[in-house]
């Protein structure tokens, strides 16, 4: 049997199918979205807590807060890198992820504003509200762009289906 025939007969090797199934996994993508959002939002809440603390915190607590913020941001950066390089989001994944991101940023912004209103000054409150609004707006923009891209692809898919014999 020639190699060409062998190649045609075996078509797609099992190992390749397994590797590609992992590559296109939606679960893996959503896990990274969740990890990134949890890291980023967690870091934001801790930053609000720190900023609205009425008295100066002990050095150890400051170091602990800084460490937690750094860890949260590191998870967010790692997730961003994975989602842009290793597990890029397809159109439907983008829409789903953007909805989750919008929900997470809105909840975090509301929580941050509530904390600042209870614990901080007016300046803290305004700064927290502005920060929350910026992140929520970014998530909304991501959702709008994701939906636009999905609509474009759906239109193209339908047109191609009509053209197909």
């Amino acid at each position, binding site marked *: 049997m020639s*190699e*060409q025939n*062998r*190649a*045609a007969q075996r*078509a*797609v*090797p099992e*190992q*390749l*199918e397994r*590797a*590609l199934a992992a*590559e*296109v996994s*939606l679960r893996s993508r959503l896990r990274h979205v969740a990890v990134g959002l949890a890291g980023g939002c967690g870091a934001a809440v801790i930053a609000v807590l720190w900023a609205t603390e009425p008295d100066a915190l002990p050095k150890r607590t400051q170091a602990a807060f800084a460490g937690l913020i750094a860890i949260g941001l590191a998870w967010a950066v790692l997730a961003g890198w994975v989602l842009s*390089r*290793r*597990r*890029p*989001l*397809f*159109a*439907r*994944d983008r829409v789903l992820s953007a909805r989750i991101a919008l929900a997470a940023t809105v909840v975090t912004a509301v929580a941050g504003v509530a904390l600042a209103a209870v614990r901080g000054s007016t300046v803290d409150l305004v700064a927290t509200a502005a920060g929350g609004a910026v992140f929520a707006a970014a998530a909304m923009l991501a959702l709008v762009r994701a939906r636009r891209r*999905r609509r474009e*692809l*759906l239109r*193209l*898919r339908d047109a*191609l*289906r009509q*053209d*197909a014999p």
Partner: protein
Amino acid sequence: MGNDGLLVVRCQLGEREAFRELVAMWHPPLWRYVRGMVGSPHLADDLAQEAWVAVVRGLPRLRQPERFAPWLFTIARRTVTDHLRQTYKAAETAMEEATTVVADDELSGVLTTVQIEAGLAALPLLEREVLILFHLEDLPLASCAEVLGVPAGTVKSRLYRARRMLRDHLAEKGYEA
């Protein structure tokens, strides 16, 4: 754009079942190209898998679904080149080529697929590659040029030289073109 384009668009949308169809459709030609370039079927398996991973990761950013075939082979070529570069340190210089344009020769359509495959191993990398893409994968001249990153005229000149070399090689083996 046809079925290829439709499959690519479905993949870009995130329809997971479309990936299986896309890979089933394009793996045999991709594997055959890689196999022709590196010689070993086992190595071809590994490199084809590496190329497919790169394809899946790059697919959301592909703006022209109808250009999938040349894009796929460009990625496969890059994977093979990276491998060869690691294996042979001097591979980069071997990939450089002059851009002289020569008219198509009279051998077009004379060589059969079997003859080409039989003589491929004896050809240098550049000539082998252009024969695989043009004759075995049936890519149009413009797509070959896109994959190889050279002008169409250069593809023609490479094809001309490759066919000559292949014909000489086959003649030595006792075949008649």
